[in-house]
């Protein structure tokens, strides 16, 4: 095996097809999209070179910054809930339910396999306020509160999006962290207990430090998914009311494909790429530090 991988020709042969496909379906469109940032127009009307106009527009467009802050807010909040609640679930599976956790695990994991659009429709009905109240409003009214037009204002719509996305993915993070917790040797826990560590101390000094790598992996998974959020928001609120729940991805899609403004759409895509790059760099830097400890 070592001799095969030491052969330059073999390496070239093995890598070329994959590289070629990667180049054609990822790098070429990325370069193409970057090129489009200097143009305005659409395929129908033809493209016109406009230099840096799209970029100056990007910095003066309030919609971009609304979408940018929404994306950041959403990514941080949902990631936090996904990882923290996922960790809580994993602790529950591993230390409380133990062997009998299979049923609970399956139930909590179930939403992960459901299609996003189905979940969005379900949540639309749950949080419905017109023409008749949905389940949530019924509950509020029954305990003496007034019903809320959940999807009618930006703040409450954001709350519904966060609840929905955490609900549909927390099972995955539960299982992910659970698999990490299983790797902690029983002997260590046992000896810590003998040394007198009770539940919180055990968690703080033994379980948490030993599950840091898997927590870190969960965080990367989560932030990767949430920063690119599109489908759940698109299906639940369509970015509304107004543009109050529009993430960058949706604004980019609208600009390019609904407003036929491919040049500016590509410029927004570039901003999104830079944002993902920054997040990736931050993650890699911190992971390197983590390894060097």
């Amino acid at each position, binding site marked *: 095996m070592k001799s095969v991988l030491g052969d330059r020709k073999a390496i070239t042969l093995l890598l070329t097809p994959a590289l070629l496909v990667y180049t054609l379906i990822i790098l070429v469109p990325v370069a193409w999209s970057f090129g489009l940032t200097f143009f305005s127009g659409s395929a129908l009307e033809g493209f016109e070179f406009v230099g840096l106009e799209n970029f100056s527009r990007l910095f003066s467009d309030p919609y971009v910054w609304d979408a940018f802050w929404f994306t950041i807010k959403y990514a941080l909040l949902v990631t936090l809930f996904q990882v923290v609640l996922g960790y809580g679930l994993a602790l529950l599976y591993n230390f409380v339910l133990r062997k009998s956790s299979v049923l609970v695990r399956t139930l909590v994991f179930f939403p992960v396999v459901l299609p996003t659009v189905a979940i969005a429709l379900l949540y639309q009905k749950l949080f419905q306020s017109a023409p008749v109240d949905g389940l949530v409003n019924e509950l509020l009214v029954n305990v003496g509160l007034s019903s809320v037009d959940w999807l009618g204002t930006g703040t409450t719509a954001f709350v519904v999006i966060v609840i929905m996305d955490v609900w549909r993915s927390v099972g995955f993070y539960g299982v992910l962290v659970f698999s990490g917790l299983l790797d902690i040797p029983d002997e260590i826990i046992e000896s810590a207990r003998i040394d007198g560590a009770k539940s919180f101390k055990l968690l703080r000094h033994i379980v948490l430090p030993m599950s840091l790598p898997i927590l870190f992996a969960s965080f990367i998974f989560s932030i990767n998914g949430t920063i690119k959020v599109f489908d759940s928001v698109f299906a639940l609120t369509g970015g509304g*009311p107004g543009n109050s729940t529009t993430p960058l991805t949706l604004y980019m899609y609208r600009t390019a494909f609904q407003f036929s403004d491919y040049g500016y759409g590509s410029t927004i895509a570039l901003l999104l790429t830079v944002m993902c790059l920054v997040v990736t760099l931050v993650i890699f830097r911190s992971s390197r530090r983590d390894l060097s400890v």
Partner: protein
Amino acid sequence: MSTATARRLRKPLISALALAGVGVLVLAGCSGGGGGSGEDPETLEFLKNAENTTTEPILQALADGVCSDENDAMPLEINSIPQADLDAQIQLLATQDGLPPMFSAGGNPAEGAKLWDAGYLLDFDKALTDLDARDKVSDGAVSTIEKLYGGAFNFLPFQYNIEGIFYNKAIFEENGWAVPETWDDLLTVAGEAKAAGLTAFAASGEQGWPLTRLVSGYLFRSLGADAMQKIADGDAKLTDPEYVEAAQQIADLGAQGYFGANVASLDYDAASNEFLTGKAAMIYMGSWLLGNINSDANTIGADNVGFMPFPAVDGGAGSIDEYPSNVGLPATFGAKTYTAGVGDWLKCITENYGNEALSQGQITGFVADDTSIELPAISQTIKDTIDTSTDSVLWFEALFNAKASSISNTNAALLVTGQMTPEEFMTTVQDALDQG
């Protein structure tokens, strides 16, 4: 040849083959499936927006009946995609020469005009004159099409709608209200309707356009029929005080609670049902609502529905007789796929669509000359109004670019729920217009 040489030769050969194989796969992936499209179509594929449910049954009835010969020669095949994706999809197909022979387009009229300018649409003026069927399309509908889609007869009026306020006659009679003719009268009626525990106006804030239609309705009455044309020409701005005043009036309706609670998330069907089940006194809507009014879903009865024009504004320049009109989201034929077979279909559709639609209770821009068809009273009222109306106006977003149109629709709910001031609303839309 030694084994070593053979091996040396084989390696580049294999990699070349692998590269060629990958290349073929990628190219195969890039080329689209032809389907019914192409220069010489075998079927009459009609790509429409899924939300349009009225055209299909009529075309199907024609295909099974009077156009069966054309259907045998070139079977009708109807496909749907969501309306929100339609303009983008049509543009994509156009640039790839993959447009089907017949398709809906111009959800945003400006996008329809672009297709015409780029030469993708059939010139119906010429085609129908050649087919000797030009007189089967009403002049009113053609003039609306010309106003909207770049000045030519390039779309077909499978729908022809006028808009106004439908009202519940029984509720009006019980409360002793006269049909309002001025904006102030309308406000009085709305106030009394609210006091009687009714929703004054059923409207879908989720859709947005039923609310912005009220803004343009007010503008056409206060400033005249050219109010929105001036915006399109750049002679006026939406931020001018007289324009903001219109937005203020509609925002006030919301502030008074005349749209009912939770208007922001009420969808189109729910808003229509609110009116058709007698919970709302009035609904501003186009004549496409006749389908619902004449259906079983209408529990107040078709005879119980009245229709009035948008009322006059005191001292305004507009006339109450100018109805907003449109051709729905219209369909058209591709210029490149127009073959003799498609021409036969076009002739058959143009000659028979009007009567078939009328027999199904729908009013279109095609001439319906079959006098034996009896219409429900409300449909007859609308038909008479269309036949006798002298001039028409467009609607708020009719001459907007796609972005301004979208922003106007998505922010309308914020305007009537007080989350956005009239100034902010008009400024946001005007900014989008200035950019486009």
